[in-house]
């Protein structure tokens, strides 16, 4: 007899499929700036989010177990939150050019999540708490925000170092003429591009395809502000996640802080982003240095999320 896939598995497949096609379309948009690719990618990303939310709800309804208590469930939420936060910022700040990377990473994490699927598992006693419905979504949402910040940081760093490369490379005379001394603002139809990358602008005007592509991205200052704005979403979420985790630990383990590897790894990430925020108040540190810290911050988040869950045993070892 043919066995049917359960509804949540069908929705998961739909979500992964939607993300993969959306990521490809948005990556195509990133490289070609063909508007139709953007108009294809956005609805697919939204459809992926809808399918994933429906999948989580269906899983909860079918199993009657809060679906975020293992790596499969939390990674699923991580993907949906990353794409959700990205869509919000993309609408608000015209960030669609970064969509391929965010949605692509979300699809990767979601595909990885499926490798942890072990079927319906009831929660262990320490996870049978209303705090699971508060703490886990907050922490995972902060991870999602930091992933978006990481992608924008990576773009900043790419553009910055390409500008540096052009600045140190001997420029043909016509390039210097094309961009030198211009103070006009360009309008790409997305974000206003300010000339804080004059060498890229000059090379773009001279017909350099890579430079043209970099030149259609927002200015470095605008990318820096975008990173700041996304981190400003992630850090309060992480803070609230740590606070609610401490409140839960106070009920479950007898102390709000146990120096458990997960807690301390989260504290480490919090410190890194606190450093980012402190440095971002200094004009001399705003830009490439603070962006590097944001990028490193996401690596610490990944260590906290996967490294501690998979390699270091502690009170938070809930893989399955």
């Amino acid at each position, binding site marked *: 007899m043919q066995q049917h896939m359960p509804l949540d598995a069908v929705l998961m497949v739909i979500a992964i499929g939607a993300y993969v096609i959306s990521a490809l379309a948005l990556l195509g948009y990133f490289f070609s700036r063909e508007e139709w690719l953007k108009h294809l990618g956005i609805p697919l990303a939204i459809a992926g989010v809808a399918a994933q939310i429906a999948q989580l709800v269906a899983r909860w309804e079918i199993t009657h177990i809060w679906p975020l208590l293992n790596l499969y469930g939390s990674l699923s939420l991580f993907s949906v939150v990353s794409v959700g936060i990205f869509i919000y910022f993309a609408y608000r700040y015209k960030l669609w050019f970064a969509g391929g990377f965010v949605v692509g990473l979300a699809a990767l994490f979601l595909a990885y999540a499926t490798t942890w699927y072990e079927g319906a598992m009831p929660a262990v006693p*320490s996870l049978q708490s209303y705090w699971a419905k508060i703490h886990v979504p907050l922490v995972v949402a902060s991870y999602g925000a930091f992933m978006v910040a990481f992608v924008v940081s990576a773009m900043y760093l790419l553009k910055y170092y390409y500008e540096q490369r052009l600045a140190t490379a001997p420029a043909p005379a016509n390039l210097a003429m094309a961009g030198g001394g211009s103070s006009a603002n360009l309008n790409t139809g997305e974000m206003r591009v300010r000339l804080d990358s004059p060498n890229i602008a000059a090379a773009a005007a001279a017909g350099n395809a890579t430079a043209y592509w970099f030149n259609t991205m927002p200015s470095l200052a605008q990318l820096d502000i975008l990173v700041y704005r996304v981190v400003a979403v992630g850090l309060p979420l992480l803070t609230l996640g740590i606070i609610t985790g*401490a*409140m839960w630990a106070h009920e479950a383990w*007898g102390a709000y802080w146990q120096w458990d590897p997960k807690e301390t790894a989260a504290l480490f990430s919090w*410190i890194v982003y606190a450093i980012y925020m402190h440095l971002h108040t200094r004009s001399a540190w705003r830009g490439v240095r603070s962006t590097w810290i944001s990028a490193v911050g996401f690596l610490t988040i990944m260590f906290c999320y996967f490294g501690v869950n998979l390699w270091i045993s502690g009170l938070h070892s809930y893989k399955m």
Partner: protein
Amino acid sequence: MTATVRAYYEDFIRTFSNVLFAVCLLLIWGLMTLVGVIVQQGKDPSDYFGMYAPPLARMILRLNIDNIYHSPYYVGMIGLILISLTVCTFKRVIPARLPALRPVKIDKIPLNAGVDVPGDEASVRAHVEQFFVKRGWQVRNREFDGTEWTFADKHNWARRGVLIAHIGFAIIAAGTTVYWAKGFSGDSAVLVGQTIDVPHHNATLRLNNFNFKIQPIMTKSGMVYQPIDYVSNVTVVGDDGLPKNETIRVNHPIDIGGTLFYQASYGFALKFLVTHDGTRSAALSDKTYFTGDSITLPGSQRQIQVMQFVPTVDRQTGQPSADPRINDPAVALAVAEGGQTAGAALVPMKTWIDVGDGWRVTPEQYVMVSGLQYRYDPGVPLVGIGAFVLLAGLVISFYFLPARLFVRVQSAPQGCTVGLAAMTVKGYDIFETQFGELVADLRKSLAPSAPASSLSPAEATT
């Protein structure tokens, strides 16, 4: 204060109020925290020699890295951060809370604009003030060297965000200090039927029974025995002498006079029937043995060590099963002679083994043990308040942008020129878009009936 002391004091203030110094302290704190994540904490010294090369293991132990979070230098680092935070708060954050109203060179500020409008200076100034007041800006006028300046502030109150965050951090530190000063914690392994004294209170706790529920679940990786519930039913007798029945579960601690009791773990203790030539040894048989305890046989150097209680023995292999539920229980015993292990056996309950010289040991009965943790922490409310104050400070600092506009209205040959510049606590880029919109709106507002001002929107330079 002598000149030398004053110089030291000023050096201290200068160093500790430096943001980069604070960042360095945060960085070191972060790295020390990370070391504690990577190096397992609180293990036996021999474990570190098992995990690392001897020189590294020695370093871990000598530098207290095995207990880094309670080491003097970790606590000292938090102390330094608190000092830096305090000095920064008084030296930087509070003075920056309400910056003085001062004139600026408008064209030197990156966010600046100029609008030429017809009309006299007084009416234009009044119009500009009204424009900002209507948009929620706090407007103040000051005269400097005969020139009247208008200052418009938005979200000025949000300049206190960093101050609030720092206060929150300090409150958390105070809360944890209260625990160190007045709190206590510990754990008790309580046998079913046993009564223990509640530490620091005139109260007792008796464990009436303990139950656990484990559910076997077939997963893709195989059978998993998932714990579902641990329940301790206890009777608490407090100051009033009245017994009160309570249930302790994971996530549901009970409160006895401010001390919370938590369900932490469970285990098994054992009773043995120990006989010598068929005669029961009351001294050895009346005791309750925990895992790791030994039965020392009188008149010999022979010891029977309780290695492990095995809830279920696999009937096919005769070995301990992975099933933690109690079906066919047995006890793993090891026999040692003069400190040397002589043998080991898995002994089913109610069956005996001969351990030599006429001695027989029979596992008679297992007794459930509930592992309870207790903690009295009067600092919890402070830590909770501090955490939310910190969070409030972060939200205020991140989401409300205090901005100040510097406006100067000057007579021009054909009316007036309104000079406008903006500063924020987070630089200029973050306010660029709003400033452009504000200038465009101001232009429209200043020329409602006229065709337009003489300048185009693109001239709002940034």
